[in-house]
């Protein structure tokens, strides 16, 4: 009975549930046509909020003065998801500004004159890819960026955020993500990364920021995406990871970041994308479950399964072969063709058919984002909190993930029934889930950087 005592966790959770219930009770009490209005994506208001921030931020943003490429990315990516383009003047100004953040020895800092940092490098590169013009893409000094990435490598196998900075899974992801999307990845860069990330998968199934720490949505996305990008995802315990992530969706419909923590709109992306990435990993998951490929296809969509190409099977086969012959590391196992594949794994991955249905409740997630996180211009963590650019970016990214989670192939539009609220008004652009950039922009960048 002592256990029934209302602890801090239960008290906080109860408060959030009451606030969310109030919102949902109201929503269910109104007639369908009013519901439809309440569910609308407030495009114009979001557009205003975002474009205003691009041109002017108040003094309170001084605490984000070392994160300006992040503010650019959160804003530009949000606009791209809304299907908005920005005018040529603004685009030029953005390229000019980001170029001033680029260090002469490679990488991008949090503002002009600041040290290069992996996280702001990721944000700057993704911003420029989102801008998308040849001018934007060619403003990135890839040779220097590569030497910066190598300089950030730590003896643990992970990456350091900046000279003298911290080593964690976030650093691994941001380094691997930019190296992949800019086509500058090689074995030296990847060496040991898989071991480091593997050491961060916890007994709960999710991935922590550092070995020993608690499983966490942000780091689980970073770790899983990085493992996919270096073609070592089969080394993670995926059944346990799946079990952990599906339990992070709470009674509110949104995701929490960790076990017994509160729901937060930004995890719509971090956790939602983990669930979404899993849908393209069915071959590895089935292998880990001891299911043969034939049996594995039984549960999934027939139409998509029959289209599995030889190339994919070969790829999976290659990785399991590596696993068997060299269990503790990948060194010396790759030949030239593996390296080529690694560089383009982002493309191969997005073009795999989605062979597994979503294992999370995609409609309920959309409901949380639209009714609890959306406010008049921008998105927030939860009711009672204020909006910001970070939550706007990741609520929209998560909403996009949820809308496209039932499609069978990249580039397929979602069905009406899979989009919550008025379809044409609410449907967002699609993202590449490994990099979180809008999909068409990703294709453009890939073409540009692979010289196709």
């Amino acid at each position, binding site marked *: 009975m002592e256990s029934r005592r209302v602890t801090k966790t239960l008290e906080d959770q109860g408060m959030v549930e009451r606030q969310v219930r109030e919102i949902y009770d109201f929503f269910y009490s109104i007639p369908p046509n009013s519901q439809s209005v309440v569910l609308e994506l407030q495009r114009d208001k979001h557009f205003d909020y975002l474009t205003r921030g691009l041109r002017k931020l108040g003094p309170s943003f001084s605490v984000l003065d070392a994160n300006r490429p992040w503010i650019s990315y959160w804003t530009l990516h949000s606009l791209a998801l809304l299907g908005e383009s920005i005018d040529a003047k603004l685009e030029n100004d953005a390229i000019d500004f980001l170029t001033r953040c680029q260090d002469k020895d490679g990488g991008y800092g*949090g*503002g002009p004159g600041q040290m290069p940092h992996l996280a702001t490098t990721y944000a700057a590169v993704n911003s420029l890819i989102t801008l998308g013009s040849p001018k934007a893409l060619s403003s990135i000094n890839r040779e220097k960026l590569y030497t910066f990435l190598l300089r950030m490598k730590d003896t643990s196998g992970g990456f350091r*955020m900046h000279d003298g900075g911290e080593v964690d899974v976030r650093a691994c992801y941001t380094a691997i993500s930019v190296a992949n999307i800019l086509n500058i990845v090689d074995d030296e860069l990847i060496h040991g990364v898989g071991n480091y990330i593997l050491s961060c998968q916890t*007994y709960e199934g999710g991935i922590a920021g550092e070995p020993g*720490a608690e499983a966490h949505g942000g780091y689980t996305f970073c770790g899983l995406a990085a493992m996919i990008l270096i073609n070592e995802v089969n080394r993670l315990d995926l059944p346990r990871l799946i079990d952990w992530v599906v339990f992070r969706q709470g009674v509110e419909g949104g995701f929490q970041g960790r076990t017994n*923590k509160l729901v937060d709109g930004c995890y719509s992306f971090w956790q939602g994308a983990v669930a979404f990435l899993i849908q393209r990993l069915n071959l590895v998951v089935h292998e880990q479950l001891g*299911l043969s490929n034939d049996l594995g296809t039984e549960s999934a969509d027939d139409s998509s399964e029959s289209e599995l190409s030889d190339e994919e099977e070969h790829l999976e086969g290659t990785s399991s072969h590596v696993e068997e012959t060299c269990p503790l590391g990948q060194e010396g196992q790759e030949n030239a063709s593996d390296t080529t594949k690694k560089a383009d794994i982002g493309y191969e991955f997005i073009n795999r058919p989605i062979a597994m249905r979503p294992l999370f409740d995609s409609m309920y997630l959309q409901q949380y984002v639209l009714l609890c996180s959306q406010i008049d211009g921008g998105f927030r963590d939860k009711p009672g909190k204020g909006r910001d650019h970070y939550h706007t970016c990741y609520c929209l990214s998560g909403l996009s993930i949820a809308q496209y989670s039932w499609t069978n192939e990249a580039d397929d539009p979602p069905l009406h029934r899979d989009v919550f609220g008025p379809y044409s008004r609410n449907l967002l652009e699609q993202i590449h889930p490994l990099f979180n950039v809008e999909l068409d922009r990703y294709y453009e960048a890939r073409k540009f950087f692979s010289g196709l």
Partner: protein
Amino acid sequence: MDSGKEKRTRIPFKERPDWADVKPVPQDDGPCPVVPIAYTEDFSETLDYFRAIYIADERSPRALQLTAEAIQLNPGNYTVWQFRRVVLESLGVDLHEELKFVDRIAGENTKNYQIWHHRRWLAEKLGADAVTTELEFTKKIFSEDAKNYHAWSHRQWVLQALGGWEDELAYCQQLLGDDIYNNSAWNQRYFVVTRSPLLGGLAAMRELEVNYTVQAIRASPENESPWRYLRGLYKNDTQSLVEDSQVASVLLDVLTSKNSHVHALSLLLDLLCHGFEPSQELKSAVDVLTPQSCSPDLALTKRVCSILEHADPMRVKYWNWRKSTVPVQSAQCQNTDRLANLSM
């Protein structure tokens, strides 16, 4: 924001005689920057002077003082922090004083990466001296925010790098006594049990830990944390989990109670997939919970999935998928153990 007000008496650098020789370097934002911040005058001026000494690599007492002012204005500026470390090393400053400085900044910024990284750097320099201060400092943070991610990472680093394991299990016990739902405290408990050099490792601790965990489960079966912890105690050794009579007995108790059954059913499903032979009582308990729509001929594992589909509609798609992967899932046993072993 408050620090801006308390600085009303601040004398601008340009009026300070000891800074007269320095030419400030304005930020190179360009003619029409995006995401421009309307800095206060104090902010701009401080950073202009910072750029000047940073570019000149001036490692002086006044440079140290300047970094303190810049950090107060924006504790997220990693360049300033990094330069401060360079200056501290060059000047050979007493690092206990530095710790006090970080304490003052940390108060309002407990979720800032830079402060914790700086603290780790300091503790590393101070060595064994820092154990008590760092363990006490993180405790103070946890008294207000018991799940602070950075603080837990810091504490784990201190324990591993500098020691201080003696009271850690008792501390976890205390935090879980305050809030049995605190998953960070469960995670720390796992960290201690598996990594403390004083306890003999997971194998030596398992029985005691299973007792504790099973008790926690009986007290609040809807609490996910101990269920995951219980599985963790048998990581790499699923066979022992399957054979543990305490586990079977807590499953039976929970499934025959009026509590939430989701976590118990989920564990039962995992056990069944690994060759668990349920007792007649446990089978009957599952029978009672089986929805009428469900064919009684259905294999037990599949029936458990069906119950879960009803009991946990949020995850109906997951339980449905589990059902579809059940038939050959006994092979998972060897496979996941193999994977787990690889990660050691």
